């Protein structure tokens, strides 16, 4: 018999290839009162280090695994429950969890599934997570310049709890075709529109980061999506003001080696230590693919007018007219929060302390809250 007040904190799946992770440090102790959203543990994987935040409030009744021990994705690492749940019930859950870890019989079916569709002669790769049969309006995630569908690893999973979520690779990025046409935001937006139509989604919420925010805005105003886009969540979006770090945009496109790329990547985060070996490696692997150099050069040319942004989507946002929520890292050094003024009166804007350009990686809870606000979910 299980008590539904007992919650299992499990090893999260951060990214498609993550199979296991280890707690590098517990940030709570047994007996601690835990608030929803509070940091529970630092977790390290082959790919990325991050902090796991609690999805529940309650008391930390048991820490199931020791620090520095490899735990498969989905394995129970801690147990949270109200203080009045009897200890023997907690002990039973812990014993079952330990048995499951020891047997290695953890079935991980939580990860996103990757598929592709063809839009305007290009193959578009995407990761789908959550129940595609759900009645709730699905969410489509649109990454920024140089990003890909894996950019959303901390955000897509929680949002997929009650609906289908799709994270696509824009043309020129990830596993999608590297042909970007003229490289303009309009071309990328028409691929997004084609993607939504090709999947047959009658209505969607769009979430866009950086250039993806501009792309989502243009797509939302496209006559072909009339009435289809239910809301926009924009994270440090491009196209809402003239300020942009042209040095970063050009530097990322031109860097060929680890040494050249690293200083540019450090501008993405408030906490520069997040630029680890694996992040640099993954981006170099992407940049080495045939066709990526040419694609990025075209996108850069369309994005910049000298040292300023050449993209302005404020008219499209006005013509969309639907619910718009924006999140901006206070320390954004790529598309600075100074641009947020243009959204005054047209969107709810949240400025997030301790985050740079990658709020969805540095402060995922703030981004999750903003998306929930936009989509009207609890």
């Amino acid at each position, binding site marked *: 018999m299980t008590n539904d007040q007992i919650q299992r904190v499990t090893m999260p799946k951060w990214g498609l*290839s993550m199979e296991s992770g280890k707690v590098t440090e517990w940030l709570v102790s047994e007996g601690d009162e835990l608030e929803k959203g509070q940091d529970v543990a630092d977790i390290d994987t082959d790919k990325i280090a991050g902090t796991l935040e609690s999805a529940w409030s309650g008391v930390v009744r048991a820490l199931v695994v020791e620090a520095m021990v490899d735990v498969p994705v989905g394995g129970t690492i801690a147990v949270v429950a109200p203080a009045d749940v009897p200890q023997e019930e907690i002990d039973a859950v812990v014993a079952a969890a330990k048995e499951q870890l020891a047997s290695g019989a953890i079935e991980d079916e939580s990860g996103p599934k*990757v598929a592709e569709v063809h839009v305007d002669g290009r193959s578009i*790769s995407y990761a789908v997570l959550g129940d595609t049969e759900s009645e709730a309006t699905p969410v489509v995630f649109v990454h920024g310049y140089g990003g*890909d569908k894996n950019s959303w690893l901390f955000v897509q999973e929680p949002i997929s709890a009650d609906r289908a979520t799709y994270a696509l690779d824009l043309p020129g990025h*990830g*596993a999608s075709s*590297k042909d970007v046409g003229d490289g303009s935001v309009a071309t990328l937006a028409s691929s997004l529109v084609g993607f939504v139509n090709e999947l047959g989604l009658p209505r969607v919420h769009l979430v866009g980061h950086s250039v993806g925010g501009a792309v989502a805005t243009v797509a939302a105003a496209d006559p072909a999506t009339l009435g289809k886009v239910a809301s926009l969540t924009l994270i440090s979006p491009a196209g809402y003001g003239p300020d942009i770090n042209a040095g970063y945009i050009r530097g990322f496109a031109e860097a*060929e*080696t*680890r*040494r050249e790329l690293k200083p540019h990547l450090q501008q993405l985060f408030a906490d520069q230590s997040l630029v*680890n*070996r694996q992040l640099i*490696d993954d981006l170099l*692997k*992407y940049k*080495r*693919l*045939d066709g990526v150099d040419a694609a990025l050069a075209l996108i850069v040319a369309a994005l910049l007018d000298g040292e300023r942004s050449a993209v302005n989507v404020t008219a499209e946002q006005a013509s969309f007219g639907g619910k718009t929520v924006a999140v901006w890292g206070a320390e954004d050094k790529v598309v600075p929060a100074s641009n947020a003024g243009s959204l005054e009166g047209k969107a709810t804007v949240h400025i997030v302390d301790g985050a740079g350009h990658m709020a969805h990686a540095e402060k995922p809870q703030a981004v999750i809250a903003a998306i929930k606000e936009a989509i009207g979910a609890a």
Partner: protein
Amino acid sequence: MASRKISYREAVNEALAQEMERDSTVIIMGEDVAGGAGGQGEDDAWGGVLGVTKGLYGKFPGRVLDTPITESGYIGAAVGAATRGLRPVAELMFIDFAGVCLDQIMNQAAKFRYMFGGKAVTPVTIRAMYGAGLRAAAQHSQALYPLFTHIPGLKVVIPSSPYEVKGLLAQSIRDNDPVIFCEHKAMYDVIGEVPEESYAIPFGEANIVREGDNVTVVAIGRMVSMAEEAAKKLESSGISIEIIDPRTVSPLDLDAILESVENTGRLVVVDEASPRCNIATDISAQVVSEAFGDLKAPVKMVSPPHVPVPFAGSLEDLYIPSAQDIVNAVKTVTEWSK
């Protein structure tokens, strides 16, 4: 970037196929590369002694050429074809056979650019198997890449994983200079994540395989996996090693090694080649010369003994540098005191 796991052998095959698809001047030459034993007909023929070029003969008619067993002849022909507009990939089968065609490589291919005032290009790639571990005895087990590294005008590539194989082989074929591409014969079944799309890894850029603070471990080719095993063993003693895979030993990314040594102050170099005048001695000498002030301990080299590779299995196993040898060397430099 769609990745899936394929073997080191499949990565060689896929790079060859994609480059032949991309550029019609790419051809393959070598002994048994088209046919060979193990198949009924031409299309399902084995494709080289270890099946690396299997299937390419049928896919690219007329561009996969079986040659007589005469390295001096076909390596010379490949070098000549390269000067006349083709991009040949010649398979030397075992690197141990370099002796019979060394003039064509050392004194012809390597020199043309320089002897003709920069006007001649020689885009030839010579693939060759190296390394011990397959009970193939002294004449088929050597790690002779230091020989080629010594010769200016040649580029020398030693991939350590399926990902490196595919990207470095593509770069070798696209490069306008002669490249010696060294494949470890005991690694063909090693599996790793490799993008389906084509990509090229630039020469002269080391890979930081693992970050660490206590000791820099530079490892070549198959020795990278030995170093990774050593890193796991050392975790419990609280020693973290930074593993650097130079990927290409000519050109060599000395900067990456120096930067790491500046941080750790300790260096171990792991090389499967015979210990005299090998890559380990070269890197050690350069680091001591450039960064003496950063070093907190003498540099340690992990290499086999200076003997031909033994045929007796028990002796061959002892000959090859092991993860434990690396652990011991790392402990020696961390425990060292004046």
